[in-house]
Structure formats: C-alpha cells, structure tokens
C-alpha cells in the first residue's frame, strides 16, 4: 500500500467500558495526530498520555512477540505494536474504531478476560510431554524433515487474534478454536512428544474439535505472525485418519464420502453424500429434500452426470489415495 501522506489529524473512536462501574459500554472520540510511521500502539499511547489517563490496554514488548496488544480496528484483528496506522486510515477511509478483541469479554476498554483462550490452550497440553532423563548423555536430535513438519506452528505468540476472529467460536463456546488447535498440531508432530494420540483423540471430539471448523479462513487472515492456523487444522484432520483415531460419524463419513462419489461419477453425488454421511438420521433431511425436489434441485441417481474421461479420475484415486476410514 502506498504511503503518500506523512502526517494526518484524525478523529478516532474508541470503545470505553469499565466492568466495575459501567452498566453499558460507550464510544468516545479523540482527535489524534498520526505520523507516517506511527503504529496503532502509538495511537493508543496518545489517547492515554494526552487525552485520558484512565484509558486501558495491554502492552509490553512493542516488538510483536509478547502477544499482549491484540485489539480490533474496524473489526480487523491487529497487533497494535505491528500494525501501521496510516495503512488503516487509507483502508478505512480515515475513520477508525478501536475495539477490544471480544466486546462481550471486555473488562476495561481494550482489556478482555482471556480465560476461555487460556483454558483451551491448556486443554491441548501445549508442551512436549515426555519422560526426560535428568542427566542425559547426549542431545535429543531432530531431523530437518521433522522440524519442517512442525511448519511455522511454533511461531504462535498466543495473542488471540485468530481465536477472537473465529466465527465458529463466537457461536459455539465449546469449540477449541484455531490457536489451541495450532498448538495441538505443533506438539503432536514433535518427535520427542508422547501425548500425540491423546491430543488427536481430544481434537477429534464432535462439538469441540476440528470438525467444528467452518473453513472461513478468518484465522489465516487474522494471524499477525502469518501462521495460517487452518492449514494446521487440515493437517490434524488428516492425522486423525492416518493414525486411525477418526471414528465413523457424520463428519468423518462426509469427508471420506467424497472419494466414493468421485470414483463413481467424477463429480459429487450430493444426495448420496448426505445419505452416506447421515445414515439413518438422513430422515431429518426429507422435508428439505422434498422442497428441493419440487424446485428441480435434485438429480435422480439414474440422471447423475459423469465427468468425461472418468477412467482417468478413477485411476488417479486408485494410485493417489493415502488414507482410509
């Protein structure tokens, strides 16, 4: 993004709330001076130091590593000490609104209660679980391939940007969320660790595990360390099949069912996939199926279209498939 302007006077709106004294939150406007290299953190400081000393936010390292200063600006998760302010002014047409990562968890202004984040983090045992000799005689070596397999998952600074950007978590508080799942992946593939199967069992649970990810990519977009949490969630999905942790249920059959359709038709047989995934519970979809049928939205089995050169697809499935349910 171009940075033509070097200095600007702008009005910024900030979320204000003190859980101890306020019944409801409110927004207050501040006139701020923004320089070309100012970060969002500099603007937060300006509010506190020049306008209202009671304005509260977490900050510590100022180097994008402690993960304390995550907030949202116009709904975009940012690490205040890493995000250039001028860029945001350009993106949001000079109107900035500072809000905490999760308004419903606000304690004081930008400060939230991150208990749910830490509870979920703890649940996946985010450390190497191993019986280590107290006086080892040589180091535990890891190969380059083993290290690379961790991907960039160990760069996570627990800032909560992805966690509080996740819409699945917003409506399902049991879901572990992208940060905890990224940590689960990171330690599960660590060759020194012995709790991998335990973590895979935990993250395979329906309602809280990987199968509740809605695949929106908000986490990949939000991460200030560019870690791409959903990539690790997909790896966990695959690991559950590789390690035979996956149980047959509506979600696992749904994922695996694509193979059957593709082998038979090349394209997906939508009706068959729902029936295959749901088994007897498919009856609950009957009213919907009838409504769709009436509108010409259901292709009968004998009319299912097939991809041209289907033999190629069948051959590729045969020679490329690596997992089984």
């Amino acid at each position, binding site marked *: 993004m171009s940075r033509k302007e070097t200095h600007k006077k702008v009005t910024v709106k900030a979320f204000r709330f003190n859980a101890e004294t306020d019944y409801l939150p409110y927004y207050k406007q501040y006139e701020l001076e923004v320089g070309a290299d100012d970060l969002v953190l500099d603007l937060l400081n300006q509010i506190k130091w020049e306008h209202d000393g009671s304005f509260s936010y977490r900050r510590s390292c100022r180097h994008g590593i402690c993960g304390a200063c995550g907030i949202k600006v116009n709904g975009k998760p940012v690490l205040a000490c890493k995000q250039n302010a001028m860029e945001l002014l350009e993106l949001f047409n000079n109107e900035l609104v500072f809000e905490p990562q999760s308004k419903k968890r606000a304690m004081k202004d930008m400060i939230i209660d991150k208990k749910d984040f830490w509870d979920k983090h703890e649940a996946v045992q985010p450390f190497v679980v191993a019986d280590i000799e107290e006086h080892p005689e040589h180091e535990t070596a890891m190969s380059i391939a083993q290290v690379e397999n961790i991907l960039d998952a160990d760069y996570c600074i627990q800032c909560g940007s992805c966690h509080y950007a996740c819409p699945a978590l917003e409506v399902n508080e049991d879901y572990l969320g992208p940060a905890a799942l990224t940590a689960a992946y990171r330690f599960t593939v660590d060759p020194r660790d012995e709790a991998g199967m335990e973590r895979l069992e935990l993250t395979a649970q329906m309602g809280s595990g990987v199968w509740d*990810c809605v695949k929106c990519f908000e986490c990949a977009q939000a991460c200030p360390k560019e870690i791409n949490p959903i990539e690790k969630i997909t*790896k966990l999905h695959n690991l559950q099949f590789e390690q035979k942790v996956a149980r047959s249920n509506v979600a696992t059959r749904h994922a695996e069912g694509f193979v059957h359709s593709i082998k038979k038709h090349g394209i*997906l047989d939508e009706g068959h996939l729902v029936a295959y995934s*749901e088994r007897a519970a498919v009856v609950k979809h009957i009213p919907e199926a009838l409504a769709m049928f009436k509108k010409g*939205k259901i292709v009968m089995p004998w009319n299912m279209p097939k991809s041209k050169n289907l033999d190629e697809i069948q051959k590729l499935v045969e020679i490329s498939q*690596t*997992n089984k349910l």
Partner: protein
Amino acid sequence: MSQLKYALYTGCTARESTPELLSSTLAVAKKLGIELVLLDEASCCGASHLQDFDEFLAYVLNARNICYAEKHGLTMVTICNTCQINTAMTKHKLDHDAELRARVNEKLAEVGLEYKGTSEVKHFLYALVDDYGLEAISDKVTTPLSKYNIAPFYGCHNIRPSELQNESNGGENPYVPTSLDRLIEALEGNSVDYESKNKCCGFHVDLQAPETSNRLTGTALVDAIDNNADMVVTPCPLCHLNMDVKQHHAAKTMGRDVELPILHMPQMVGLALGCTEAELGLKHHVTKVAL
C-alpha cells in the same frame, strides 16, 4: 475489446442443486459476448472436505482439473467460491513447492497429464468486474435495478486469505470488499452496507453442527433485513444453498421472520441485461423471488 474467452469449471453444485447458477452464467456470458469452454472432464474439487480426509488426493484431482484449462491455453473461471479456493490453493502449493509438484505430476503422468502452472484461476465475478469492466457492463444494462436494495454477501472463499486471493483472484481487501457493491451500482441497484457482508455462512458444518450453520446464516440474513435489503446476492452457490434452501432453519434459530430472496451473482447481472426468466431459472429457488 478483444473477445474474452475462458475455460469454465462449473463445479458440482451448478450441475445438481443450483441449475439456475449454470443457466444464468451461460446466459450472461452470451449477452456480453464472453466465450466459455466447458471443462466437462473436471472432477469435484473436494469442497474442502475431501482435503480433510486425504489432502494429497485432493491436490492430484485439482491439479488434473487445471491441466484441462492449460490444454485449452485458457484462464479457468469458477462459479463457486469453494471450487475457487481449492483450485487456487492447489495452484499455489504446486507453484511454490517443487517436491509436491513432482509427486503430483508423477501421478498425473500415469494418465498422460502434466501440471505446468500456465493457467490462471479466477472466479467469474472477477472476470466480469476486472476483465470485462464495470463500465462496459453498465453500457449493456436494459433493465436497471434501481428499485432494489441489494445486500452483497461475498462468501469467505473469494476474499480470504489475501495471500491466495491477491495471487490468482480478485485480490480484494477481505475487511473492505467492494467488487459486488460496485457491480450492484453498475447495474443501477442500491448496494446495502451491512456488517455481515464479508462473514461466513457456516455451510461447511451444516451436517455435523447445524446450530452453528443456522446461526451464522441467520445472523447475516437478519443483518441484511435490518439494513433494508430487498434481496441478497452472492457469488457462491454454497452460501446460496444455506441462505435460500435453509432459510427457514436460520429464521427459526434466530427467532425472526425471514423472507428474503437470494440471487446468484450471474442472476442479478442477467436480470439487468434482460435475460429471460427461463435463463435466470428463478423457479428453482426454494425461497420465492418475486420481482
């Protein structure tokens, strides 16, 4: 302008549960003089679910689909956001990971194909907005949509993550997407500004977590209604299924009356360009579209 020509990857939904998407896409292309070569050889993209079961197999199948666009020497256009992201993600991986590309090509060689990386992959929305151009579309409008307040619903897989979208799609900012808004305005409709326009509809957990799915779709629909929308438009048939076919579930979850017509992006364009009722396929909607 020289004639635009693309290889069309229809995806599965347009051939099954949303036939109106395919007919309206073809009708709009015809009206605008855009040539579409149908990739009838293509398989399913895996819809982000096969990827959970067997990531490598999904790469192989998507690479094969791209091979057929490459054979035509054409840019591939998609009409489903999820087809778009899975195809673009495969292209990104193969273009940046030589080892994976070699492994995939080893499999493709068995059926006489090779992924070369010569075809771009973009959603038809961006073929219209970026390649054909909004002014040129505006010139072809015969039935302005001026009496409608239209809420754009972008769909996740066309706007996130930026890394991918900048490389081979519209490259819009996911926090401030504009393409659909600008398209609505070019057709002389009124675009509705509402918070949920770039949010998730929850389609991908419909089977295992219907409560999540209904709540996400319901939140977006109610938000559109509360901002005076007469209809919603989306470039994604999966968002469309959730918002149209499952609208009553979403309404029930939200405890609100919802009766909101949902248009596919090409249906909206076709409406303004004077395509016929049959081409638009409005009779295929579960939630009635009364214009």
